[in-house]
């Protein structure tokens, strides 16, 4: 399973191979996925022509967009199947759909209380989309959509803009006062710090997800190529860890987006009442 995963992954990464004949060193002509020799050519090969590096040999981004589209289609087909002919006592896929929605709506309610219901569809979409994308990387021929920085950065930027939108929706223009900090006369110092910490959030969200998912498949590739005889068969031991990471990282992503939304939209009414009393 994982053996064919790494073999096909290597073939996929070879698909965008160099057109110039510069990669003719004997190590790179070797058919097996020898990461140390074949994956990292130098700036100039022995023939003197420039050679691309491993970082430029990654699979084309369109492959990851295709797999993220696959996850999207999977969710849409399941949703359409679950919501046609809805009955009061649900059967089959409507039952599963209701179970999933009930579990997913518990997350914003746990973090934000009752006003979490308003943001629950948005957050559940993140969780479902990311977990399906992550898990599809475990299927032999597939790759995770989130193993590409483009996809995760897109998710992070989208989450960032939606958090700002919810903040403005709740507070109007007074949302800017959220960045001012607690004391009024220090606000010009605190303002850039808060803006910076707000801007770093999509980057940290996307890097966390990308690093976990891409790192898992890189670890499996490194394991299967560096241990001489039983390498590809040892990688099955990474499977439980990979399963845990997929679900956990989707959960952490949605939980962090929930926390950001709750921080952006919280109303300080009870604080003011306490001070006036």
């Amino acid at each position: 399973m994982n053996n064919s995963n790494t073999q096909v992954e290597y073939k996929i990464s070879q698909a965008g191979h160099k057109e110039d004949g510069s990669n003719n060193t004997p190590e790179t002509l070797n058919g097996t996925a020898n990461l140390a020799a074949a994956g990292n050519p130098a700036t100039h090969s022995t023939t003197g022509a420039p050679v691309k590096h491993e970082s430029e040999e990654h699979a084309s981004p369109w492959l990851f967009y295709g797999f993220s589209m696959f996850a999207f289609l999977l969710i849409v087909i399941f949703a359409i199947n679950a919501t046609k002919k809805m009955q009061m006592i649900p059967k089959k896929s409507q039952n599963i759909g209701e179970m999933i929605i009930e579990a997913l709506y518990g997350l914003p309610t746990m973090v934000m209380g009752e006003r979490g219901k308003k943001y629950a569809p948005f957050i559940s979409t993140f969780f479902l989309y990311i977990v399906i994308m992550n898990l599809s990387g475990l299927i032999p021929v597939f790759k995770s959509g989130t193993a590409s920085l483009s996809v995760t950065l897109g998710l992070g930027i989208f989450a960032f803009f939606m958090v700002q939108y919810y903040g403005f929706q709740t507070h109007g223009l007074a949302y800017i006062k959220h960045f001012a900090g607690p004391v009024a006369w220090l606000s010009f110092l605190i303002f850039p710090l808060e803006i910076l910490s707000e801007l770093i959030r999509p980057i940290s969200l996307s890097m966390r997800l990308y690093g976990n998912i891409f790192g898992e498949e890189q670890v499996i590739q490194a394991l299967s190529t560096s241990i001489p005889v039983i390498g590809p068969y040892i990688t099955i031991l990474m499977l439980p860890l990979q399963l845990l990471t997929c679900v956990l990282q989707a959960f952490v992503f949605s939980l962090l987006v929930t926390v950001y939304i709750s921080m952006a939209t919280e109303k300080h009414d009870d604080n003011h009442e306490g001070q006036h009393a």
Partner: protein
Amino acid sequence: MIYFAALALAAGLGTAIAALGCGIGQGNAVRGALEGLARQPEAGGRILTFMIIGLAIIESLTIYALVLGFMLMGKLPVTADVLAKIAGGY
């Protein structure tokens, strides 16, 4: 040549040093979770949930260093080419 030596050192040591801090941090997190669990075993499920969330966030700092390690590893040269260059003079 010093460039490649420094690159190799950075690629190797970066994640290792990040994992050092991550180990200490996650050890503290689990210690707090276990102490809370020992005081009140009925709260086991909630404590486990928050512990897992905290561990994932602490781990993400090491993951940033790991991603940098991958980027640096991609810029390392092949050993055969480096040896050929050394044999043929700098």
